């Protein structure tokens, strides 16, 4: 899959840092301001999808898709681990950490950690789904078959 023009590549290079920082801020302050893990994760995934669209590169998708799958599973496992860790207090999904001062960054018990796990999970999922759909493009190959994920690796 070919990349885009020089203007798009340059602007992507400038804007990428802002997008990632904004996404991370939405995730980290998810228990204080609107947003949270889901929206923040999708914003971070959008940054990476923008990078892949601008720079293209058919042959380099193999590692990106393995890293994204791993992060996806790690995010879900972390969320499950936090839920099961509530069992130490006696109940599944118990919020077992201290509550902290209201409106502080370190408050809300287990909620900021769950936000991070959800952001990892959702961001990796959205990025992986976009990558997989970008590898399968509707115009057909030479022998008439639709291309698949294997062609991108």
């Amino acid at each position, binding site marked *: 899959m070919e990349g885009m023009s020089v203007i798009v590549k340059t602007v992507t290079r400038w804007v990428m840092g802002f997008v990632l920082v904004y996404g991370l801020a939405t995730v980290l302050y998810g228990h204080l301001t609107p947003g949270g893990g889901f929206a923040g994760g*999708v914003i971070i995934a959008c940054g990476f999808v923008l990078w892949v669209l601008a720079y293209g590169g058919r042959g380099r998708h193999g590692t990106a898709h393995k890293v994204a799958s791993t992060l996806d599973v790690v995010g879900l496992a972390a969320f499950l681990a936090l839920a099961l860790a509530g069992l130490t207090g006696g109940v599944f999904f118990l919020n077992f950490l201290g509550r902290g001062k209201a409106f502080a960054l370190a408050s809300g018990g287990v*909620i900021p950690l769950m936000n991070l796990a*959800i952001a990892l999970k959702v961001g990796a999922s959205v990025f992986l789904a976009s990558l997989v759909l970008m590898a399968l493009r509707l115009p057909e190959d030479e022998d008439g078959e639709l291309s698949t994920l294997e062609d991108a690796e």
Partner: protein
Amino acid sequence: MFSPDVPLALLFILVFMVVAADLVALKSKDLLVSVISYGTVGFGLSVTFMILGAPDVAIVQIVVEVIILVLLIRATLGRDRKVVSGEHEPFAAAFAWVAMLLLMAMVLRIVLLPETPAFGQPVMDRLADTPSQHYLSEGLKETGAANAVAAVLLDYRGYDTLGEATVLFTAVVGTMVLLRRRAKKKEAGS
């Protein structure tokens, strides 16, 4: 029929813009015009949610409909498909019109009943011990999170969030499995 807190004129302008953009997206033959119109629909809906007092939903709406949808369409369709072609279907169109008019008449009948609560007015605060009132009054003290939506999603109803994360995971796994199967079939046939 409408609660006095709702900015009615702005809401009607936004709804009109969303419906007009939807019609443009459906009737246009050029795919780029369609995609941009869908972006306008998402933007209009997001501003609607924001002025109705739901900033979390507004953020998710912008991110998912405007950004992800446009990126996915551009990424999957590529540059080769420019126009949409197809024949007119008069029976399907007539049926759709009749169904839509019936639905609108039904909705109007229900909305104009005197017992229906006003639009924009919360319904579940008539009783003091409903769960929603408990979440709003005790949320900050019990969970420590200032954002009530985050407190409900990740603390009070965390199990539903686990289910939703599982659904997303299954969707991605299913997509990847379906695409691999086609490669195996190609190898087996050749």
